[in-house]
């Protein structure tokens, strides 16, 4: 199994170098490599997950870097959730991006696919990391490999967005480095432990500073306000990038690392006794509400979705900060479910752009008639994020609500529910608008290539499937219960 785990990180990197060496020519070979690698990677991850659930723990200490610090890979349940999510959605998005990039005649596609594969590989690396240093290494590769994707357009705006992206994320990395070194000095180890390994004897203020440095450092990637601004700007990137990286892999890596910090470095005992969880949760709640308020007035569809992503990432973090069984479980499920639903919405936004060259919400009148499949999937994704059954968003909302009550905090419960209602306020007008009969001129059906509409329909239906059968194929439900149990002990 160790070979498979290693392989699933190694393969995307290999593919990345292969594609880069192919150059801009041989498109078919490039597509074949991408699809083949993504399938194989997912298969490996799934195999590892199954053996994990069968009770076999995969871990590898590759190189020793310092005393008690190795390049350390460990395949635990928490990582398995993120790895499954990213690698599975990669298959769909790569199929989608073939059609998308061709339909728009994009330039520099070799660089695009190469960097894409590298980003996924490093996201998987983040998932598999067994200690903070390993995670930090992959985290940095992820940041840098996404940079060329953000400024893919190479326009003035894209270069600005790319610069902004780097400025935000690299300053975050600095904070993490500081916190990591300090943690090592305090504890002498960096290996993750369910329930936390942080046992510093120094004064509480220093500990709080370390925690906040970790939180903000990783939180920049998770777009916590006021460090979110890079994400809406990064929407100038091509849609597949926004879909997989800025809704699933990259930003979720930020959330993943924050959760690692909360659950595996500091742990519930420390956070609860120092009451720091409450302040962090309040901080994040502000983002939950504010991002949705900003989304209401945003007219650009992709940027509106970006604000919704900012909101949902903070919802996930808020759920894990509750430090209760249902809260953590809900947060993990929401991480997965939001991935499926948001990627649907982004792919729909891309399909609308390809089909009708429309990117503003105010232009969408009557689009539902011309692109029925796309808008159907969009509706599913939007309703799912609002939390309406039978779409999976409801299940995570349910657990998050239960979780905040287990912590006896009705405040955060109302934050979740208000955020859901605000979701409705900015998503539903899009749906209603697109199906309204106002504009007669665009009612002719536009036919898109299957490569575009297939994946988005698939993820849309998958979000319904995940509600009806929460514990099939990927075993997300069991995995999240396992994580919650291992961290909290119940």
């Amino acid at each position, binding site marked *: 199994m160790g070979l498979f785990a290693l392989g699933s990180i190694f393969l995307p990197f290999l593919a990345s170098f292969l594609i880069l060496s192919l150059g801009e020519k041989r498109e078919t070979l490039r597509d074949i490599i991408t699809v083949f690698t993504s399938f194989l990677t997912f298969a490996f991850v799934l195999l590892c997950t199954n053996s994990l659930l069968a009770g076999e723990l995969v871990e590898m200490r590759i190189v020793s870097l310092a005393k008690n610090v190795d390049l350390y890979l460990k395949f635990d349940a928490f990582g398995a959730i993120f790895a499954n999510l990213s690698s599975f959605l990669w298959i769909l998005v790569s199929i989608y991006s073939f059609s998308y990039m061709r339909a728009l005649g994009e330039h520099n596609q070799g660089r695009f696919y190469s960097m894409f594969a590298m980003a996924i590989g490093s996201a998987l690396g983040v998932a598999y990391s067994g200690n903070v240093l390993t995670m930090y290494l992959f985290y940095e590769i992820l940041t840098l490999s996404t940079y060329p994707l953000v400024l893919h357009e190479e326009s003035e705006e894209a270069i*600005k967005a790319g610069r902004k992206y780097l400025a935000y994320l690299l300053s975050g990395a600095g904070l993490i480095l500081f916190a990591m070194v300090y943690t090592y000095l305090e504890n002498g180890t960096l290996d993750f432990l369910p329930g936390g390994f942080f046992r510093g004897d120094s004064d509480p203020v220093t500990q709080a500073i370390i925690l906040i440095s970790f939180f903000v450092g990783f939180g920049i990637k998770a777009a916590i306000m006021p460090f979110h*601004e890079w994400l809406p700007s990064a929407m100038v990137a091509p849609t597949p990038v926004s879909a997989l990286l800025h809704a699933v892999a990259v930003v979720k890596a930020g959330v993943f690392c924050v959760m690692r910090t909360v659950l595996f470095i500091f742990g519930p005992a420390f956070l609860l006794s120092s009451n720091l969880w409450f302040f962090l949760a309040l901080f994040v709640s502000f983002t939950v509400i*504010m991002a949705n*308020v*900003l989304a*209401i*007035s*945003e007219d650009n569809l992709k940027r509106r979705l970006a604000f919704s992503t900012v909101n949902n990432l903070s919802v996930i973090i808020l759920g894990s900060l509750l430090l209760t069984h249902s809260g953590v479980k809900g947060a993990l499920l929401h991480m997965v479910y939001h991935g499926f639903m948001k990627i649907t919405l982004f792919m729909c936004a891309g399909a609308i752009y390809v089909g009708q060259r429309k990117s503003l919400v105010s232009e969408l009148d009557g689009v539902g008639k011309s692109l029925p499949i796309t808008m159907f999937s969009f509706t599913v994704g939007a*309703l799912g994020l*609002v939390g*309406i*059954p*039978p779409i999976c968003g*409801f*299940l995570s*909302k*349910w657990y998050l*609500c*239960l979780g905040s*009550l*287990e912590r006896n905090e*009705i405040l955060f*419960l*109302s934050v979740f*529910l*208000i955020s*859901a*209602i605000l979701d*409705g*306020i900015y998503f*539903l*007008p899009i749906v*209603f*608008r697109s*199906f*309204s*009969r*106002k504009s007669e001129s665009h009612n002719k059906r536009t036919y898109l290539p299957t490569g575009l509409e297939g994946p988005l329909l698939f993820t849309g239906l998958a979000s319904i499937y995940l509600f009806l059968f*929460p*514990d099939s194929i990927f075993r997300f*439900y069991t995995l999240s*219960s396992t994580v919650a149990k291992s961290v909290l002990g119940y």
Partner: protein
Amino acid sequence: MIEAVNPALLLIISGLLILLFESKTLRLAILLFVPLFTIFQVFCLSEGEYWTINFAGYELVTGRVDGLSLPFVYIFSVITLLINLYGLHINERFYHGATLIYSGSSIGAVLSGDWFSFFAFWEIMAVSGASIVFLGGSRRSLGAAFRYLIIHLIGGSLVLLGIVTNLYESGFQSIGIEELEKINLASLLILSGFLLNAGCPPLHAWLPDAYPSASYAGTVVLSAFTTKCAVYAIIRVFHGWEVLIFLGVLMALYGIVYAVLENNLRKLLSYHIISQVGYMICAAGLGTHVSINGSVAHAICNIIYKSLLLMAVGSFFYAVQKEEMWELLGQRLYGKLKFLLFIYTVGALSISGVPLFAGFASKTVIMAETGEAHRPIVNTLLHLASVGTFLSIALKLPYGAWFGGMKDSNFTKGYELRGIPLNMYISMILAVFLCFLIGVYPRILYLHLPYAMDFNPYTQYNVLTTLQLFFFTTLSFFLFRRKLAIEPKRSKDMDLIYRKIGEFFLGICSGQYRIRQKVQESIGALVERMIIFAKNPYDLKGLFGRKSEGVIIEYDPEKMRYGIGVSMIMFLGLYGVLSLIFILLRF
């Protein structure tokens, strides 16, 4: 075989099939045979628990069949058939699909034995209801559907908040739906969510806003399910709560006042939904076996005659294309729509509770029970509401619609009417038949109520009081009808407040957004200046956003550098100083 499939699931899946396939034959087959099968199936169901699912660690019961849920399921499945028949000619699969999903989810909510599945169906109901409003197709329907969905999301959130709080207070033991007796946060939240769906003032404004905005057939569909489902839930969970009596009477009167003032035909009937649901809520509040029976019976009868009324008015609207009374002033249409007037009158007499019609059989039970419970004020106020009902539905509406306000004898010369399709008539005739059947032979209704009951509505006292009331109402209407003049105005209701709040909120949002943009712009500008400054340190003023006057010296790094020797000495000097400090610190 009867227990093979949950009727709710069957209806929802067949609704999805209609949505997916454009085939007309398939649609017709589903629209007729699925409800028929459902009726057959639910009438064969016996009490018990069916269709339990193990879901995400919960044991979900999606089929709790008992005395209370059965009558609601019966009437929901019957009305689904009537509705489908009524809209059979409509060539729009979205409407039919949404209708089936809507009715399926209502049946599902009624049959749910646990909070989780109940809430799931409750939310599906809100979404499918909103899409039926949306399919009205006009600009008004678009806004109304959006408001409907948002308000129901808020209501749903209240219910969800209440449900989880309730689970928490009971220690997460079971998620079965039990009756709530204690007044606490959880029960109050759930109750307010239910009351929102029941249309209780001041949470009612969505109802008269949304229902008339749907298509003529859509209004019929909407009127049957959401509010009755809320009534079911209130009876199930909150029966015997004193406050419900008060709220019920409030609803009954509030609806009437607005109905008497209203001039839009379907909006008038929408206000009557609020009023009629008031009777049911009031009876649920009394909490005795007979009053619960009365509440359920009234829900059943109400679904039948209210659908009948809305079907008739819908057909009128279909034929005439007008539904504001002031547009119909002076146009006597009754000559051309006589049969429709007959059908409408049956519904009107039923809702007023005239003997021999359905409403009499159920309303008398509630009235008698308010008397039994020694609540004379409630009894009198409900009688007053009945008078208002009779006045506005049986007298004012036909007077305004069919007789054009009797202004002058313009006999609609050259007025083209659209022919009403046969299936609409068949559906209405079936409903008329049901109204008569229950009115003449009330036992058929009483047999299916939650508790056994020996009750005969046809006592001398009951019949005489009702007839007296209606006689004098009719008399006074014709004496004072000039006072009820039909004017082109809309009455103001709570939805005005909703809209104002909404606009205010959106204003805040865009304000926040503008602040964000300002901040971003200024940060961006600052970065720009930093870049310029870094390129040319002479241009210091540029950093503060001012244009430098005069000649700006071009920056050339070569000129600024010292020679190699000087640099070396400076470096060594610095090194020396640092070493000195280090050594000094060591001491």
